């Protein structure tokens, strides 16, 4: 039962990912990304990672998706006539060759790496119990991984300052619409980050 569900979710995740990279309008692309995130959260849940499934839904499908949708709607990129002014469809040969070469290199690396993966599956009892109990994770996060944890909070602070600097209106420039909108994005991202901090602290 759970296995069938996993394969269905895996197919759906791959389908949504194809949607992300092949959609004409950024809006469809971002909504497909939301679908892929939700499918992956369910895969985490099936694989025995309940906390990470919750974090995935809260941070990815919640905070990050809101940022993406906010920017897509703000910039009105769904206007296809405007998109068509630029040669988005015509892909140059070098670009396709580069993409094909990287896909080939990735495939070879995956084949080489798969030789070292032990066959078989995880212990069913462990899956039922869950691999990411809150208590072990919290203890590890605040003892062995304390330094990365603090570095991460510094990174979030630097991000917040960076976004505010990027979004700030240029000195002397007239108060224009886009500047105010960018400041709103900065405020939205600042609101999203404490949520992540909270998820990490738990």
């Amino acid at each position, binding site marked *: 039962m759970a296995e069938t569900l996993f394969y269905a979710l895996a197919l759906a995740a791959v389908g949504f*990912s194809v949607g992300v990279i092949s959609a004409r309008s950024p809006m469809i692309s971002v909504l497909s990304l939301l679908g892929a995130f939700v499918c992956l959260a369910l*895969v985490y849940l099936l694989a025995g990672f309940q906390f990470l499934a919750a974090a995935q839904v809260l941070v*990815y499908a919640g905070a990050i998706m809101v940022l993406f949708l906010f920017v897509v709607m703000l910039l009105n990129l769904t206007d296809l006539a405007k998109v068509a002014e630029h040669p988005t469809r015509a892909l140059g040969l070098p670009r396709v060759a580069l993409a094909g070469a990287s896909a080939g290199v990735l495939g070879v690396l995956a084949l080489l790496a798969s030789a070292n993966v032990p066959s078989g599956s995880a212990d069913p009892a*462990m899956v039922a119990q869950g691999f990411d109990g809150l208590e072990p994770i919290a203890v590890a996060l605040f003892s062995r991984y304390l330094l990365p944890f603090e570095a*991460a909070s510094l990174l979030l602070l630097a991000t917040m300052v960076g976004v505010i600097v990027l979004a700030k209106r240029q000195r002397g420039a007239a108060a224009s619409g886009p500047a105010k909108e960018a400041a709103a994005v900065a405020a939205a991202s600042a609101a999203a980050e404490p949520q992540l901090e909270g998820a990490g602290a738990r």
Partner: protein
Amino acid sequence: MNVPHQHLLILAGALFGLGCLGFLLRRNAIIVLASVELMLNAANLAFITGSRIHSTAGRPSLEGPIFTLFVILIAAAEAAIGLALVIALYRLKQTAELDTSSELRG
């Protein structure tokens, strides 16, 4: 869920490959950022599979979940900065097409 480790890794590899293709082939800055998020998610799935492989009965391997948490955190920071850059680019060029920004080409 009694799925072989390889199948989880194949899913992660497929998602990473699709994200890589989107990153290289698309020109819209927002879709490029979405492809990067897709690749980070594939990495998370690989970390989770690693945790499943290295866990023994009663002793879960915590490196996988903790690295996944940090990747989620980096992804949030990257999305915030990346989208602020898209807004700045749009203010400058009135478009989010990356090919219009080639001032640094030698």
